[in-house]
C-alpha cells in the first residue's frame, strides 16, 4: 500500500508540474507572418544625393497595447519612481561608465527618479527575455538595433514612442525626433511606421584602412570596383596584404555581398531576395557576379590564403600590426585595435566602391546602430523616456563620443579623430541600411542558418560561386515552403 501511495504522490506531482507548465495568462497577439514579395522589383538608387530616404522596409512588429496618454514626465511623476535598466554593456566598459554618469546626472536633476542599471553585457537581450518570462520588471534596455528589432521588438515588447518624440529636445528648440541623424530613427520602425527604438550609437560599415600604408604605397581610396582591385594589386606588390578578414565571423563576411548587391541593384534588393518565397531571385545574375567578385579577391591574393583560418581577432590584428591595409567592418575597429597600433597610426575609411552598371550610390551606408528601447510593460514609460530625452542632448552625446570613441546619432556632435571619416560618411549617407540590408531584423533564422552559412561557404572556398547561387535558391525555396 505504501508503495502505491508513493507512486500516486509522484505521479500527482508530475501532473501538477505539467499543469503549471500549461497555465498562464491570456495569450498575446500572434506575430504577423513575413510579408510575401510578389515581384522582386529592382530598387532604384535615390536621384538626389542629399535626399535622405527611409531605407529598408520597416520591421514587422506585434501591435502593442495602446499606450497611455502622454503626459509631461514632471507632472506624471508625483511620487518616487524607480526605473530598471538592463544594459548590453559590461560595467567596466567606457560606454557603461558614460551611461552611469548620465544616470547620476539625471537623478540629480530628477530627485524623485532613480535608475537601477544591470550591466549584462552582449547577451543582454537573451537575459532580458528570460527575465521577462519570469515576471521581472524592466523598464528599458539597450542592444544592437537589428537584433533588438528582430527580437523583443518583433515580439511586441517595445513601447511606441511617436507621441513622446514630439516633445521638444532639452537643448534645442525643435522636437526631439528632429535632433537625430537623418533616417536612423526610422530605420527600425514598425511596419506601420511606429518608432520603438532610440538609437544612440552609430557605427558605419566601411573599409577601415591604414592611411600611412596607403601613402607609402601611393594609392588613394578607390571609388569603383576596378579602382579597388587596382589599389589592392598595388598594395600586394608593395609586400602587404590588401585585405584583412576573419574566418569565423559571418556577419563581417556578409558585408561584401550586402554592399556589392546594394551598389549594383540598390538597397533593398538583397532583402527582397531573402523574402522571395520561390527562391528564384537568387538566380539573378547579380548574386553570381557578387560571389565571383568576392572569390576573385582570394584568387588574386588580395585576401591572404591563410586568412581562411583566422579566428577573430587574428585578422584585424594583421591590420593593427601594419601587415595588412584594410578591413571591411564597423567603425568600432579603431577602438578595438587602439592598444596594438603605433601611436602615429592614422585611420581612414572609405565607402564600398561602386560596381560597373550599378544603380546604387556609393553613399548608401550600412549602419550598425545601438539603441535603447522602453519595454511595453514598463510602469513608468514617460519617466524612462525622459531619461532618453536627457541623454540625447549634444553635451551628453559628445561625452559618449569622446569617452567611448564611438559615433553617435545626434547631429552636430563631433566624432573622435580616428573615426572622422565615418562621421562624414554618416552625414552624407543617402540611404541607411540595417545589417544584411535589413534582413537580420526581419528574418534572423533565414539569415543565420541559410544566408550566413552559404555565404561563409563561398567566402572561405567551400562552395563555388555557382554552387552558392544554386544552394541559396534551393535552400530559400525549402525554407519558405516549410
Amino acid at each position: 500500500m505504501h508503495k502505491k501511495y508513493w507512486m500516486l504522490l509522484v505521479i500527482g506531482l508530475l501532473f501538477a508540474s505539467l499543469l503549471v507548465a500549461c497555465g498562464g495568462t491570456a495569450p498575446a497577439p500572434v506575430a504577423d507572418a513575413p510579408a510575401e514579395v510578389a515581384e522582386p522589383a529592382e530598387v532604384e538608387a535615390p536621384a538626389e544625393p542629399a535626399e535622405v530616404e527611409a531605407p529598408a522596409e520597416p520591421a514587422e512588429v506585434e501591435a502593442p497595447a495602446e499606450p497611455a496618454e502622454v503626459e509631461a514626465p514632471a507632472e506624471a511623476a508625483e511620487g518616487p519612481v524607480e526605473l530598471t535598466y538592463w544594459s548590453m554593456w559590461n560595467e567596466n566598459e567606457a560606454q557603461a561608465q558614460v551611461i552611469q554618469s548620465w544616470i547620476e546626472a539625471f537623478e540629480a536633476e530628477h530627485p524623485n527618479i532613480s535608475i537601477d542599471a544591470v550591466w549584462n553585457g552582449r547577451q543582454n537581450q537573451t537575459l532580458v527575455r528570460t527575465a521577462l518570462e519570469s515576471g521581472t520588471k524592466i523598464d528599458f534596455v539597450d542592444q544592437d538595433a537589428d537584433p533588438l528589432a528582430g527580437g523583443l521588438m518583433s515580439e511586441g515588447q517595445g513601447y511606441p514612442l511617436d507621441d513622446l518624440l514630439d516633445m521638444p529636445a532639452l537643448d534645442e528648440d525643435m522636437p526631439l525626433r528632429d535632433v537625430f541623424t537623418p533616417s536612423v530613427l526610422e530605420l527600425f520602425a514598425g511596419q506601420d511606421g511606429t518608432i520603438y527604438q532610440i538609437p544612440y550609437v552609430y557605427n558605419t560599415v566601411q573599409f577601415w584602412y591604414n592611411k600611412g600604408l596607403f601613402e607609402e604605397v601611393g594609392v588613394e581610396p578607390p571609388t569603383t570596383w576596378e579602382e579597388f582591385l587596382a589599389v589592392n594589386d598595388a598594395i600586394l606588390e608593395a609586400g602587404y596584404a590588401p585585405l584583412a578578414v576573419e574566418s569565423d565571423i559571418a556577419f563581417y563576411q556578409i558585408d561584401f555581398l550586402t554592399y556589392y548587391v546594394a551598389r549594383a541593384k540598390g538597397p533593398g534588393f538583397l532583402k527582397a531576395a531573402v523574402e522571395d518565397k520561390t527562391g528564384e531571385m537568387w538566380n539573378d545574375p547579380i548574386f553570381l557576379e557578387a560571389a565571383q567578385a568576392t572569390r576573385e579577391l582570394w584568387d588574386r591574393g588580395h585576401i591572404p590564403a591563410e586568412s581562411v583560418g583566422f579566428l577573430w581577432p587574428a585578422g584585424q590584428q594583421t591590420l593593427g600590426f601594419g601587415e595588412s591595409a584594410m578591413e571591411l567592418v564597423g567603425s568600432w575597429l579603431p577602438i578595438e585595435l587602439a592598444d596594438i597600433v603605433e601611436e602615429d597610426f592614422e585611420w581612414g575609411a572609405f565607402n564600398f566602391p561602386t560596381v560597373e552598371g550599378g544603380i546604387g550610390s556609393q553613399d548608401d551606408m550600412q549602419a550598425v546602430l545601438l539603441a535603447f528601447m522602453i519595454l511595453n510593460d514598463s510602469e513608468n514609460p514617460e519617466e524612462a523616456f525622459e531619461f532618453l530625452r536627457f541623454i540625447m542632448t549634444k553635451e551628453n552625446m559628445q561625452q559618449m563620443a569622446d569617452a567611448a570613441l564611438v559615433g553617435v546619432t545626434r547631429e552636430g556632435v563631433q566624432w573622435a579623430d580616428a573615426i572622422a571619416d565615418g562621421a562624414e560618411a554618416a552625414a552624407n549617407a543617402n540611404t541607411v541600411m540595417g545589417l544584411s540590408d535589413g534582413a537580420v531584423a526581419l528574418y534572423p533564422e533565414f539569415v543565420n542558418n541559410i544566408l550566413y552559412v552559404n555565404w561563409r561557404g563561398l567566402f572561405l572556398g567551400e562552395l563555388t560561386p555557382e554552387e552558392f547561387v544554386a544552394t541559396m535558391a534551393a535552400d530559400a525555396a525549402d525554407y519558405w515552403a516549410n
Partner: protein
Amino acid sequence: MKVSRGFIAAMLLPASLLYLVFFLFPTAQTLYFSFFDFSGLGNDKVFIGLDNFAELVGDDLFLLSMRNTIIILLFGGLLIFALAFMFTALLNSDVRGRRIFRAIIFIPNVIATIALTTLWSYIYNPRFGLLNNALTQLGFEELGKTTWTEPDKIFWAMLVALIWIFVGFYMVLLLAGTDKIPIEYYEAAKLDGASQVQMFFRITVPMLWDVITVAVVMWSIAALKIFEFPFAFTSLEPVPETYTSAVYLYVMGFGQRTPIYRLGYASAIGVWMLITVIIVIVFLRRALTREAVQY
C-alpha cells in the same frame, strides 16, 4: 536504532522537492514546449504536435550538430580514455615527479573555458601559432603551413583541444581507483613473472571496472551536452562546423547575435538530447555491468 518511515520521508523531502522543482518540472516543461511553435515570450504558443521533431530530421544544421556530438562522444571518448589509461599506467610505474605530472595533466580542468579557447586560438593561429612554429622548427615545414582552423579542419582542431582538457579529469578518476588496489597483487604478479602489460589488463582493469563504468557514463553525459568550449572556441559566435547539439539548441532558442528565438524548436532539440542520453546510459549500464572482481 530503528528509524521511522516518517522520519525518512521528512529527510528525503527537501532533496525531492529540489529535484522536482529544478529537474522534473523543467523537463516536463521542455517536453510540453516541444509541441509548440513558441518564441519564449508571452503565451503566444501555437500547438503543432510533432512538427518540431519532424523538422529536426530534415534540418541539415541539426544533423551536423548531432554528427559532431557523436564524434566527440565516440572518437573523442576513445582517445580520452586511451590517453587517460596510458597516463595512469605511466604514473603508476616508478616514474619520478608523479604528483607534478598529475597536476600538470589536470590543470586544464581548473582553468576558465574562455581562457582555454583563447589559448587554443593562439596555438592554432596560422601566422604565429605555437603549433605551426613548433612543426616548422622540427623540420615539418609543409605541415607547419597548415591552417588548422579552416572550415574542413576546425572541428578536428577543436576535438584535439577537448581531448587535452578532459584527459586530466578521467586520468585522476582512474588514478584514484588504482590507488585502492592493494600493492600485494602486483608484487605477487611480479613474482609469477607477469609483465607490466599483463598486470595492467589482468589486475588494474578488472579491479577498476566500477570506476571505468562510472567514468564512461560521466563522459557520455558530458559529451552529449557539451557546450562551453565549442560555443566559445570561435570567439564572437560559434561557426556551424563546431556546432554541437547543445550549441545548436542555444542558437535556435536563445539566439547569438541573430535573435532566432524558436524556443519550441529548441525544446525539441533538448528532448532529443534527453532521449539520446537516456538511451546511451541504459546501453552503457547494461554493456558495462560485470560481476565484481575479487581476488
